[in-house]
Structures are given as C-alpha cells and as structure tokens.
C-alpha cells in the first residue's frame, strides 16, 4: 500500500523539470516525503566518460545545489549528480535508495513529439518496477497554490493486476481523504462501412463489465464512482477523467497476465495523452 515516504526526482534543469518540481513539492508536503534530486551527465561510455564529462561534474554539481533551492528549502532534499547513461543511473538509484515514487515529466530537454514519450522516460517506465508519476507539458504546470489532489481516477482493465491497482489508488485516496473513481473500457467491434456497431452487443459487454467491477469493489472494500464505456481505452479514460474532474490518474503499467511486453501500448498512450498527471504502477 502506498506510503510515499521517499520521492526520487530526476532533473535536467529544463522548464519541464521546473514545472514538475511543483508537483514534487506538493506530494512531499501531502505525504511528508523525503526527496532526492538526481542529475545525470549524459556521457557516452566510449567517448567522454573519463575526460570531458569529469570536468563538467564540478560545475553541474554546483548547478544542482542551487537548482530550485527556494522551492525545496523546507524539504532539505538530497542532491545527487552522476555521470553515465541517464536511465541506467536512475535504475541504480532506484535499486539502492528504493524510493516509493519516481516523479518525472514525460519529456525532458528534447523536442516534444506528440506520439512519443521522451526517450529517458520511456526507458525508465520500461526498466523499473516502482510507481512512476508522469505529466505531459510539465512546462505548463500551474502555480503551486493551484495544484490539487481531490479526485483520483483509477483505470482498470479487469486483468490479473486490476485488484492491486485499485487497492493502491484507494489507499492513496484514503490517505488524502479524496474522492475515488474507477474507469473501464469495453472492447468495441469495428463497424464495417455502412453498418453501425451492434447496440445489443455493446450494452451486454458494458453490463457484464459493470458486474465484474462491482465484484472488484466489494473485494477491495472501495466505493468508487464507476465509469464504463465501449471504445478505445485512452479515449474512454480521457472522457471519464473529464467527467469526473480527475486531477490524478492511476493505471497499471506492467502486464501481469502473460501477455508479452511491459508498457503495453494502452498504458503508453494513456501516459502520453493524459491531461492530468498519471501514476503508473
């Protein structure tokens, strides 16, 4: 169950880092967490590790010391600087420090490409097991006083990990005494040209899903507002988030039911397109 006592916050000094920092500050205040800021000098092993990158270490450490000093002054965060491959260094710190939550924007310094996650974020989501908080367009984060946590929406696919995802989201919502919602997308048959989707079939699938979600809730002891709709998962989730007024989305990230592939493409798309921050577990 989440107790967010340690937050790892990889930074790259970009505007997106600065924006994401406001959320880190909010979470640390809500959950009374320790924070670690991590900066990695991206060095290609073969070319520059021992020479030029080393020369940058001192200046980057200095830059890290003063980065967001005001914002984090009441938290006394650890500030760690490393040289190497950003993802690998993040993974090493996750293993040694064991944070409860990793927070990073979906994109870092590079250009924003609408249908791709930033490459470090994508690799981190793939490589590590701990919960990861992400936000798109972090450079547009509202000011601190406007950041809220009042409605947590949990997306479930009714697979083997759904119970775990729901319990995690519920525990988070309970700790902050905020509302919990639950959303599920039922599959939809592609209509052939000239034919509309079969109404009976769609309704039957939705009804069946609602019954399963009710059983899931009963087992978890939750009383979430339920949203079920037929359609593509990322669209159904987005609609529900808007309707519910969600300011945080919780989804599963690793597939637990024997399908190949971490970061299943539904999760990837939701993370990429969500208007509110997403915690993927």
């Amino acid at each position: 169950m989440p107790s967010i006592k340690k937050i790892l916050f990889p930074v790259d000094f970009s505007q997106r880092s600065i924006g994401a920092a406001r959320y880190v500050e909010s979470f640390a205040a809500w959950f009374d967490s320790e924070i670690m800021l991590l900066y990695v000098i991206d060095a290609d092993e073969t070319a520059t590790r021992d020479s030029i990158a080393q020369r940058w270490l001192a200046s980057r450490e200095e830059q890290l010391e003063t980065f967001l000093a005001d914002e984090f002054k009441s938290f006394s965060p650890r500030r760690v600087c490393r040289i190497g491959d950003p993802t690998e260094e993040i993974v090493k710190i996750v293993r040694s420090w064991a944070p409860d939550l990793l927070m990073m924007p979906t994109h870092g310094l590079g250009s924003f490409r609408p249908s791709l996650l930033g490459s470090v974020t994508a690799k981190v989501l793939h490589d590590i097991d701990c919960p990861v908080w992400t936000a798109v367009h972090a450079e547009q984060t509202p000011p601190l006083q406007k950041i809220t946590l009042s409605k947590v929406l949990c997306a479930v696919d009714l697979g083997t990990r759904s119970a775990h995802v729901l319990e995690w989201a519920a525990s988070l919502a309970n700790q902050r005494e905020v509302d919990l919602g639950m959303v599920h997308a039922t599959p939809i048959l592609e209509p052939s040209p000239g034919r509309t989707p079969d109404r009976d079939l769609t309704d039957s699938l939705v009804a069946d899903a609602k019954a399963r979600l009710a059983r899931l809730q009963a087992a978890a002891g939750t009383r979430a507002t339920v949203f079920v709709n037929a359609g593509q998962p990322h669209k159904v989730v987005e609609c529900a988030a808007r309707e519910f007024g969600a300011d945080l989305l919780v989804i599963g990230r690793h597939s637990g039911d024997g399908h190949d592939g971490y970061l299943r493409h539904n999760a990837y798309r939701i993370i990429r397109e969500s208007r509110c921050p997403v915690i993927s577990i």
Partner: protein
Amino acid sequence: MFHLGRILVPIDFSASGLIAANHVGALARHFHSEVTLLHVNDFSVLHPLNGPLGFGITSAEAERAEHLSRRQQQLDEFGVAELRCVSVKRLLRCGDPAKLIVECAREDKSELIFMPTHGHGSFRRYLLGSVTAKVLHDAESPVWTSTHLAEPLMLNPTEVRHVMCAVDFGPQSCKVLSWAASFASEFGAKLTAVHAVLQTPPTLPDRYTFFWHDQAHLGAEERLRGLVLDSRVQADVIVVSNGDVPKALSVAAKEKGAELLVIGRSWACELPRRLGTHAYFIICNAPCPVVSI
C-alpha cells in the same frame, strides 16, 4: 515500376552498421541507387544546457576536432567492400542524430531511410531505440527498421520471397499496399495483405461469440478484398485476431513466414503522418524487418 533512387543509411561504425551497408549494397546494385552513408556525432555533453552556468573549454575544442577527424577517416573506410559498384556519398555531421538524419533525408530526397539494428543504448525488448523512434516520427520517407527480434531472420532484401502488408483501412492504406506490391513484384515475392481485428473478448457472453467473430472477420475480409481490388494488386488476404494488434501481426508474420512486413506509419493515429502507437509497437515486436511508409 518500383524505383529506389536514393537510400540514406545512418551508421555508427558498429557491426550492425556493416550489415546495413551490406543489405543496402544489394538493393543499390539492383536499383542503381545512390547511397548516402551518414554518421552523426552527438557532442551534447559538451554543450552548456539552459542554466546560469555556461562556459567554453578551449581544450575540449581541440579534443573535439581530433575526434571528428578520426571519425571522418573511419567513415571514409567504412563499408567499402559492402558497397562496391555503388555510388556512395559519405557525410559526417554534428548535432542531434535524429534531427540530422531526417534533415539529410529531406535534402537528399531519399526514397528510403535504412536504419541499422543496434544503437548505442541497452537493448529493451519492448521499446524502440530512441533515435529510431524519433526518425520514424519525423521522417517523410519510408523507413526500414529491423529490431533485435528480427535479427535471426534478416535476409538480404533482394532475397525476400514473402512480403506481408498490414493495413488499417485508413487513408494511407492504398499507398502502403501499392508500395508493398511493387517491392514484392520487383523480386518475385508473394504478397499477403493482412488486417488485425480485436480478439473476441473473453468476457463476451456465449450467445454473442459467433456473431462477434463473424462480424469482425467477415467484415474485415470483405473490406480487405475490396482494397486489394481497388489497388489493382495481386495479394492473398488474411484477417487475424490474437491479443492486441501488434501481437496479432507479429504472430501472423511468424506463422506465415513473412520476411518483410510493410505498414503505414500513422497506423490508428488521428494526426496524419505521425507515428501511431500501433505502428511503434508493431515495429518493436515484428519477427522480421519492417518498412513503414
């Protein structure tokens, strides 16, 4: 008539770069193409990032110049045997690799960007390399990719005997199918057109199962045959469903022994000419090389 006048090959001097050069050599000799070998140096660690501190280090400049001159020499010697009898241009650039690859392809009017299998980073089974992903996202020309999964089956492109073309019935489908058919016919290869439908949901009540399968498969098969006819190509037609779309296509390609998979890049994507999420994961999981149009 299929024509491949200019091919761009980004390389990093690794073994996979040589394999790429070898395969491109075969294609280029067949089509009398011009090949551009491009190496991009990424010196990002030397460039001050946004922030209050920024300063130049003059000794770094000297090291950089020396590094570049070594790279130029490596480039001049690279793939000479593999690209024999081919007209080759060798370019060395500095900056962001993906951006420069796309720019170069645009300036050159490349008809194909041939990405090597490996990049510098660690292998992640379910992700594309970051440069490859960005090139796929930004490029305007068709891109040839082969991930690690496809390695055992990496044939010389001119020896491909079975091309599989996956269509989503979107606006690009005709164009994608035509490319696949032209390539296949150039090498006397068989062409199979495939469409993946959603698997019958496990929670579907029994009374609907047959109906679902029927609607999904027959409907799709009908559309696919129509598309093949409209495109005036010769192709076998199959409809598959096995888990999600990327998985279904990967299984189909393996079972049917496809040696090349051709897809549209904006697969199931609302934004035109952008990398659709399906396309990304199809490329990741394919058991053979993929050309995305």
